[in-house]
């Protein structure tokens, strides 16, 4: 269970680096249905919202933490903000630092502000992701 007095400020660093590949960029671009030439060809740049891939991986780390008691199927995404320093490129070796910046519990729901710092091989920030996630407690959702 989440507890503001224990978990605000909780910080998780990614364990395995994420390697940005051409095929993953093309897969992401195909899902978006965007034919921008920047995202195509042998050496594509990733669309800005490729940041979602790293954001989702970072959330998974929070969800996998048994201390927090979170379940993906009970999470609704309420707000999102991305701030870019540059776009992802093929060959980037990415790590993340995930911070539970704020937590309020109201009416059987956790309101979590999660910030993900997405860093490259030089520890320079590529993009910062800030999300408001609403997590329903188990007894509020049918099994």
């Amino acid at each position, binding site marked *: 269970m989440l507890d503001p007095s224990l978990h605000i400020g909780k910080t998780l660093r990614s364990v395995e680096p994420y390697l940005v590949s051409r095929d993953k960029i093309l897969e992401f671009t195909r899902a978006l249905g965007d034919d921008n*030439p920047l995202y195509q060809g042998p050496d594509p740049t990733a669309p800005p919202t490729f940041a*979602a891939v790293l954001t989702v991986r970072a959330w998974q780390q929070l969800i996998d933490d048994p201390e927090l008691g979170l379940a993906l199927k009970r999470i609704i995404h309420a707000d999102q903000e991305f701030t870019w320093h540059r776009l992802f490129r093929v060959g980037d070796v990415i790590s993340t630092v995930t911070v539970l910046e704020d937590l309020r519990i109201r009416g059987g729901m956790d309101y979590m502000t999660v910030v993900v710092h997405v860093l490259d091989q030089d520890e320079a920030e590529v993009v910062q992701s800030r999300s408001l996630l609403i997590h329903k407690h188990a007894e509020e*959702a049918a099994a």
Partner: protein
Amino acid sequence: MTALPLTIGPETYTITRFGTLLYAAASGDWNPIHWSDRQARNLGLPGVITHGLYTMGIALRAVTDWLGGDASRVVSYKLRFARPVLLPDDDDGVDLRVIGKVVAQGETTWTVRLEVACAGQPVLSRVSVEVKAPDQD
């Protein structure tokens, strides 16, 4: 370069269940509310909804196309997921309609406000995109 117009769109993009599955695979977000009607109903939704991040990614295309494809000029992108985008189990999907306008022209960045709607109802709200100002190039 030629001056950028101060309005964007309307542009229309289609979201289908199939596209949503492609996005689940591409993004790694396998939340079952995006592929199981049963699991979506368990959470109080009428049925499968698309990923907010997918809607967000598709809507940004209106801005990057307006920038002539130069997506590296996007500085920040912020919004609220106002309403879920419900996906019928058919091949046609739903249309996302995007219009935008430049609401601030700073020296280094411009701010674009987007309206993103599905069937006449806003699905994203408070949508603000900051882009590098054109004269910076």
